[in-house]
């Protein structure tokens, strides 16, 4: 039995520590991991728990992120709770196996501490890695602060391992801004957290020696399409209701309310910023300042990036006249991914809202309040004109001459 770790009701944790404690409380059976900034402390914290007897699973210090996820896949198929963490280049190295994990329907929890992807090499937070994973068949849950990083890990295990789902889940937090910034985190007692997640219930486990299973078979044009369609079906139909159920249960337990789509000052909003990660809270503050001036500004935070909640997003945005999609990843040749998602969500809904796209914060560049004010000013002009008054895509916070497209 693992030693009891004495927790206060409120701890001062950064996002990495919050995620590490969630892993400890989940009593993960196998963690296979490889360090990379800024997710390294999750791996180190876990190793420390191990060294001091606070966890009693296995810890595999792999030779690479690809090896780490490969071990996670083997461990998960063997039949137990599995988790790991990575960022950026490590995430990119893992990518091949991410598709394997989801295609094999293995409920692995991966903490992605978001970071830019080189070249140029950069250790700071942006959403390039999160975006790289968006077609990989994983559930993607986004955190805005350390409290979220704690709570969303608990939710991720519970949802991912549900037998109706059996899909791996990424829990995203912003590199440094969340991962290395200590804040107050309200904790659950170990037994309460574990009960919230639930016991791991194996299915098709290789270690059930009386029922051998074949994992990772070949399918060609005869079956591949059906297999992928089922995977998509599971993502589309089962995940959001289960997440909602988990959010409701968490609220009953803690009073903390999470939503599939987070909306702030949105009830009567004319203009809205839609964004992810730590930017959500900054945008909320700016919207409050604008509200004080009588401007009906709101914020929509993406909480669940995959499966993308198209209908719920269209619903919160339905009354808006102008909307800005903020993307923190280089779009490299097109509009930002979030812009695309929103366009898809709003198209055919009868809305006449003007939708524009802002690229910001690459490689850890701060998103300032003045940038957000300026975006809201653009939105106001768009709302009044009923058409775009700026280019469709603008770079904000960039040095040098203004950059815009379309």
């Amino acid at each position: 039995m693992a030693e009891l770790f004495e927790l206060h009701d409120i701890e001062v944790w950064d996002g990495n520590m919050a995620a590490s404690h969630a892993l400890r409380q989940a009593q993960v059976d196998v963690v296979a991991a490889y360090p990379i900034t800024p997710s390294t402390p999750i791996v180190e914290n876990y190793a420390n728990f191990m060294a001091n007897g606070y966890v009693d699973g296995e810890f595999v210090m792999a030779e690479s992120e690809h090896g780490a996820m490969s071990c996670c896949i083997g461990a998960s198929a063997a039949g137990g709770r599995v988790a790991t963490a990575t960022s950026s280049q490590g995430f990119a190295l893992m990518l091949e196996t991410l598709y394997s994990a989801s295609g094999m329907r293995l409920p692995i929890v991966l903490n992605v501490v978001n970071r830019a992807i080189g070249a140029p090499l950069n250790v700071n937070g942006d959403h390039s890695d999160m975006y790289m994973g968006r077609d990989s068949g994983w559930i993607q849950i986004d955190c805005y602060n350390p409290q979220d990083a704690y709570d969303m890990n608990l939710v991720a295990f519970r949802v991912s391992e549900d037998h109706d789902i059996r899909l791996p889940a990424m829990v995203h937090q912003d590199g440094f801004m969340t991962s290395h910034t200590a804040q107050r985190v309200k904790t659950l007692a170990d037994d309460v957290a574990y009960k919230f997640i639930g016991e791991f219930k194996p299915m098709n486990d290789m270690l059930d020696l009386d029922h051998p299973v074949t994992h990772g078979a070949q399918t060609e044009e005869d079956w591949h399409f059906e297999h992928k369609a089922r995977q998509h079906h599971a993502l589309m139909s089962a995940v959001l209701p289960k997440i909602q159920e988990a959010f409701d249960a968490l609220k009953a337990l803690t009073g903390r309310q999470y939503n599939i789509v987070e909306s702030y000052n949105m009830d009567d909003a004319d203009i809205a910023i839609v964004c992810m990660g730590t930017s959500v809270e900054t945008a909320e503050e700016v919207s409050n300042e604008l509200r004080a001036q009588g401007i009906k500004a709101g914020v929509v935070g993406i909480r669940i990036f995959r499966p993308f909640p198209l209908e719920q997003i269209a619903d919160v945005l339905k009354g808006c006249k102008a909307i800005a999609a903020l993307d923190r990843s280089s779009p490299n040749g097109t509009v930002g991914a979030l812009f695309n998602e929103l366009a898809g969500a709003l198209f055919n809904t009868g809305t006449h809202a003007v939708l524009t796209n802002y690229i910001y914060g690459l490689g850890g560049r701060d998103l300032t309040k003045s940038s957000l004010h300026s975006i809201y000013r653009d939105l106001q002009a768009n709302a009044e004109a009923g058409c775009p008054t700026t280019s469709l895509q603008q770079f904000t916070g960039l040095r040098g001459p203004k950059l815009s497209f379309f």
Partner: protein
Amino acid sequence: MFQAKTKNLKNFSTSAERFEGANLLCPGCAHSIIVREVLNATNDNLILAASTGCLEVCTAVYPHTSWDASWIHIGFENGSSAVAGAEAMYKALKNKGRLKQPDRTPKFVAFGGDGATYDIGFQWISGCFERGHDMMYVCLDNEVYANTGGQRSSSTPIGASATTTPAGRISYGEKQNKKDIMAIMAAHGAPYVAQVAPNKWKDMVAKIQKGFATEGPVFINAMSACTTEWKFAPEDTIAISDLATDSLVFPLYEIIDGTKLNITYRPKNVIPVRDYLGAQGRFKHLFTKQNEYLIDEWQARVDAKWEQLQRREEACL
């Protein structure tokens, strides 16, 4: 009971199956002989992995499987890590008292081709061996990327014609010497490293059983004659394998704890390397005026390696 009495080939060849004959491997493929011999060397439950390659694509095409033991495939490079992860889970569940059959101890085995082993998957194997997982890694060494149509690997021997190192008007084919994977794996300090060939089945079974009895990572390099890429008739697999072991092109030996080397097969009549090469289409172009010198060089290399192995054995290091 899977483990056959290894005294008698007939008995052995009719023992129970956990690897079904219903598979898509070429007739005469040595992969299937080796896999069967490995699986039949133990009565214990098995947790298996295969890397992408002929064995994998020919034995688990949905909705069929040839495996009557738990089996996993992830990708080309990571069969070792798949089994290592499963082994870690076994340990975790054992410690936590959650095994469904706590009285049984399964064996963990990963299969990979030479491409998966010598080349693309080497880092993963090295990691698994350094960490000391209790597992066996079996390389099905057919000296070529057979599954994808015969491209060279770092196991392809000098002078073989492969599709990416074809013999041509001005080329004799593969230019590099075969990588010495045995020495490299022994250098990891692995407790048991052995080279086997399916024609020497008693030697092979003894080594596999020794491997299963060993705690920690075990590496087996199994010569796997490939009828399609080596270009010989499917019924000649064992004859070609005999030429390989009796010409000492493929010596059979083991290395214990990274140091102690034992030669396990000494042919009564050593045959010339030329006979081995001449039996396969992939070396056909060596038998020309222009390339014949390569056959002498081959013989010299095989002689030198045999000499070195004998010195190593005597040295009792």
